């Protein structure tokens, strides 16, 4: 995996040193910088050096700012974590009730409306939705700031205000995807034979629904939520840019623009690790939810 990360970054066209130096420079400075950054080494050598250091937690130094990549990522991580978890919360708050209602009354008005809404949510570009929301809530109504980020510890009110719009944009998109899954998994759970057994026992409807339908529909929901969370954690670039949200997506974009290989490699490596971690968590949750997987 680290080979792929490294290789992909090397494919980015452009010369980082030239970009760092600007239009006017002399050959000596160029050579000196090249030697210091290690870019004059053969690629294999560069990879081995980078991978070796990465293993010890040293992801190198940014070409652009001179800061270590780990500290750059560390600075951005809280913002991304905040946005990702807030978004997934919004997504679930939308998807679980809406998907469940649709499944309970298939082909009803609620179901049709939910289908259309989730179709819109999936297909509308995030930047467009973000801009519309900013125009309405920050511009016309003036209720919320148009962007930026304040740490929770400094100003909880401002933190929540600034979090709301970006979380809604990404939450609506993820929520639209998850709604579809909730609908189909609840529908499937409703049709299961054991639901009839539960009804035949004379259980109250609510109990049948909670323990014999929702409980069983939870499994696919965990999977799709995990996938969505992984996607959100790897930085929702567009939304972070529009809302001036200082997260990892923004960092990665800046790194691409300035050919800042160490930062870009570090960010991509982190995304990959996050993805694996989330998959691990999903698997662990599965064993907690489904006794058939337990040993």
């Amino acid at each position, binding site marked *: 995996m680290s080979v792929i990360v490294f290789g992909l970054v090397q494919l980015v066209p452009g010369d980082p040193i030239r970009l760092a130096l600007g239009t006017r420079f002399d050959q000596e400075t160029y050579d000196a910088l090249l030697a210091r950054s290690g870019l004059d080494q053969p690629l294999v050598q560069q990879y081995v050096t980078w991978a070796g250091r990465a293993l010890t937690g040293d992801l190198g130094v940014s070409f652009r700012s001179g800061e270590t990549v780990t500290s750059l990522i560390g600075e951005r991580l809280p913002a991304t974590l905040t946005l990702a978890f807030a978004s997934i919360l919004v997504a679930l708050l939308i998807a679980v009730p809406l998907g469940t209602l649709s499944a309970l009354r298939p082909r009803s008005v609620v179901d049709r409306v939910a289908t259309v809404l989730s179709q819109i949510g999936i297909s509308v570009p995030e930047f467009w939705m973000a801009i519309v929301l900013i125009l309405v809530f920050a511009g016309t109504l003036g209720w919320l700031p148009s962007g930026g980020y304040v740490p929770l510890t400094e100003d909880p009110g401002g933190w929540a205000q600034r979090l709301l719009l970006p979380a809604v944009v990404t939450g609506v998109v993820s929520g639209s995807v998850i709604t579809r899954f909730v609908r189909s998994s609840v529908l499937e759970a409703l049709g299961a034979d*054991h639901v009839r057994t539960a009804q035949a026992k004379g259980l109250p409807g609510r109990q049948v629904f909670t323990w014999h339908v929702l409980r069983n529909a939870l499994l696919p929901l965990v999977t799709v939520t995990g996938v969505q969370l992984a996607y959100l954690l790897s930085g929702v670039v567009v939304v972070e840019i529009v809302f001036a949200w200082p997260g990892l997506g923004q960092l990665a974009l800046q790194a691409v623009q300035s050919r800042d290989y160490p930062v870009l490699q570090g960010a991509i490596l982190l995304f990959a690790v996050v993805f694996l971690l989330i998959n691990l968590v999903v698997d662990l949750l599965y064993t907690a939810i489904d006794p058939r997987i337990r040993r």
Partner: protein
Amino acid sequence: MSAPLLEVEDLRVRLRTPRGPAEVVNGLSYTVGRGETVAVVGESGSGKSVSVLALLGLLPARVATVTGSARLDGEDLLTMSPERLREVRGPGVGMVFQDPMTSLNPVLTIGRQLVEGIRAHGEVSKAAAREQAAGLLAEVGLPDPQRALDRYPHELSGGMRQRVVIAIALSNNPALLIADEATTALDVTVQAQILDLVAELQSEHGTGVIWITHDLGVVAGIADRVLVMYGGRCVEDGTVDDVLERPAHPYTRGLLGALPDLAQVGDGELATVPGVPPAPTDLPPGCVFWPRCPVRSDPRCETEQPPLAVVGTSGGTLPHRAATWCEEGSPR
């Protein structure tokens, strides 16, 4: 004779399907007495399962229209309030479903699934309900019932699961037990054990039983009366002896004729009833069995639905009835 436990009258079920309305059950009437076992037999698609699911309101209301009446102890199941129906499910009627592999919830323990049924019908503490559940599992012959309570369905074999399903159906001492192909998915030895078990419980508690099956061997073994269904109608009913020994309807004869004779070894071909049952969206106008009937002795067969008429009462007090234009003793 005292009032029967269950009195079904003119039960009709119509299902909305993509191919138009399906008349799945068409005017079914029968009774089940206390302690009596009524077997309902017929091919797949003859409306057996739907007719009993309709009794308990277990058909999806969006697609099923149920008419007629079904009085359990004088109270009509088909018109009672949803809350009253919920109270009846369990103590009034217990139901055992066909497939033990899918009729238990895979993510809840056996104990939980039993306990919730017990606690849905009375103030019982969790601990007491758990004790009761263990007792039930012991009663249905599950080894080590205390430990079985904490197991999940997938940890048990099919036969064991079906015992659990039966234990759930029996957990509120139902007045009527409906077993829908309860042993079809099991192997023969397990089936025999389960049949014995139900007979035993029946003699202890005086439970009335509706046993749905297409296994005539099972019918002969456990039933007092038989009801033969075809195309959503009762085509013949009567005591086991009457129906199995002196079948009056060509369809019943066909079913009995299709039983392979194990004593006969050789290359003899299996007898069948040729053709398939009519689609419930497209029932024939006359006798439902006419398109497949080998007799067709009467001109009315094709055009007029024969009524269920008494053909004899040789077995005892119960009439032997059949819905056919065929004269008794007409050629097979």
